[in-house]
């Protein structure tokens, strides 16, 4: 079975990325909703802590998520939504191989300007370096409509939440400056 092309795999990757971006943006949004001069003064440290916390969580969750979903369902949510399946000799990957692929494999492919991923474009069988390293195939088993729709929706949601949070913070900041001027 032929490997999936670069475009679909990029789409799946972006979808996974946007799912994790949402992890960052949702708490950021809720903090911004209650942003006031006091929050800006006293809450700066809390925001910093939250960012570190979410970042730490996302690293842990992302690795576990990748290994678990790839070994149990044959792909991450992004890949499944885009109708992609990761297999090795027509079988699902065992947990060890999934772990190696997600850590050492991705590290190898991204060390030099993500050349290992770009190889999907130039290789005849559309295999990335991490696929060649662990004898894996990323095949297309369904169409990508659901994935494309989910990706567009998530990008829009992330953008709206981010811009709204930003404007909430700016408004609070302007109010704080105006209050200072009046005082």
């Amino acid at each position: 079975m032929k490997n999936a092309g670069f475009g679909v795999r990029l789409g799946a990757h972006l979808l996974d990325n946007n799912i994790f971006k949402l992890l960052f943006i949702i708490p950021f949004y809720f903090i911004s909703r209650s942003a006031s001069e006091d929050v800006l003064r006293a809450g700066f440290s809390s925001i910093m802590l939250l960012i570190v916390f979410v970042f730490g969580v996302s690293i842990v969750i992302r690795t576990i998520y990748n290994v678990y979903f790839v070994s149990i369902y044959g792909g991450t949510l992004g890949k499944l939504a885009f109708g992609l399946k990761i297999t090795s000799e027509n079988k699902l990957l065992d947990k060890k191989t999934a772990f190696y692929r997600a850590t050492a494999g991705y590290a190898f492919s991204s060390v030099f300007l993500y050349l290992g991923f770009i190889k999907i474009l130039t290789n005849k069988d559309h295999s990335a370096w991490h696929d060649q390293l662990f004898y894996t195939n990323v095949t297309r088993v369904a169409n990508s409509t659901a994935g494309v729709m989910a990706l567009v929706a998530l990008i829009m949601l992330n953008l709206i939440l981010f811009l709204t949070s930003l404007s909430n913070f700016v408004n609070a900041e302007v109010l704080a400056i105006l209050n200072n001027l009046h005082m």
Partner: protein
Amino acid sequence: MIYILQSNLLCDYNINVMRTRDIVKNSIYISWDHKLLWIFAVLAGLTFSNSFRIPNSSSKNNIKKDLQNTEMMLEDANQEANVLGASTQRFIENPKDTMRQIFVTSGEAIAATSVTVTVGIMLAVFTAVVTRNWARGAFVSGVHKAVNKKKYTLGELSTNGRVMMVRNFKLGVTIILLLLGAALLSALLFTATAAIATKVNWMLTALVVISIIVGMGIVWFYLISTTVFSMIFLNVDQSRVKDALGNGYDFARANAHRLVKTYLLTAAVTLGLAVCMLAAFGLLVVLIGGLGYAIFGLVYKFSEVTAYMGALVAGIPTVFVLISIWALTKGLMSTFKYTVLIYLFNDVRNSK
């Protein structure tokens, strides 16, 4: 009779010199042709500065320097705060307090963050150890195949890496313990002998110090050679860690003369390569930096904000590209060094 013996020795010596030169020359071509091995070398951390790092106080000094730099940066930030707007000033007018504030917000938040960060760091360290030892196995078997002009696939190298990962880890730990022990022993010996000698007279002290330095140099030469060749034995023969260490030491002892020559020649070529690469890299930095500065200056005339935004947007990928190029340069150098050593290893084995 003496003449014949002398001429034979001379002849043998010349053949060896030629061989070493050929090894180095061929290694340059091999390491240039097998670029994928550079990436394995980068991931394996097989640079001389990394794998042969002797624990000393310089890292502590660096930390001290970093702390001093941070203090200076904080003072700079204080000064800059006067120029910046009122709202930003509030956060950076006393950065030390702000930093303290971050860590003294609330007990629960700190505990949660500490646990997450600790788990994250542990996972990152585990991943780094796995990747490093996997890459070591893959790299050495790849270089060995390249030296023997055998074809290989990424999958084959990766499988070798996986098979040898645990043994590479064990060897690494053993070597670190050995190096630490040697460092401790050298320091103790040096201090004790110097302390005793200073009480006698300064001539004796100088003599003792020189002989200790020479002795330590020899010990470190054998230790480093054993380290490198035990790793080669381990991954090429897929032997046990104990056997690999023994074989590595025997190899270093039996070929000390050739090893010194090879190290010196390799060091000279690497130094030349480093100078060339550094010059090219410097030129690239100057060109990109100059171009960036010129564009920044032009845009700055029209819009200050756009200029800074542009610098930020263009600066991050540029730094990323430069770091990648730098990493690959180090990868090339490591591949070259290990190609020379594996070539030598092969040459000695085949000549038996």
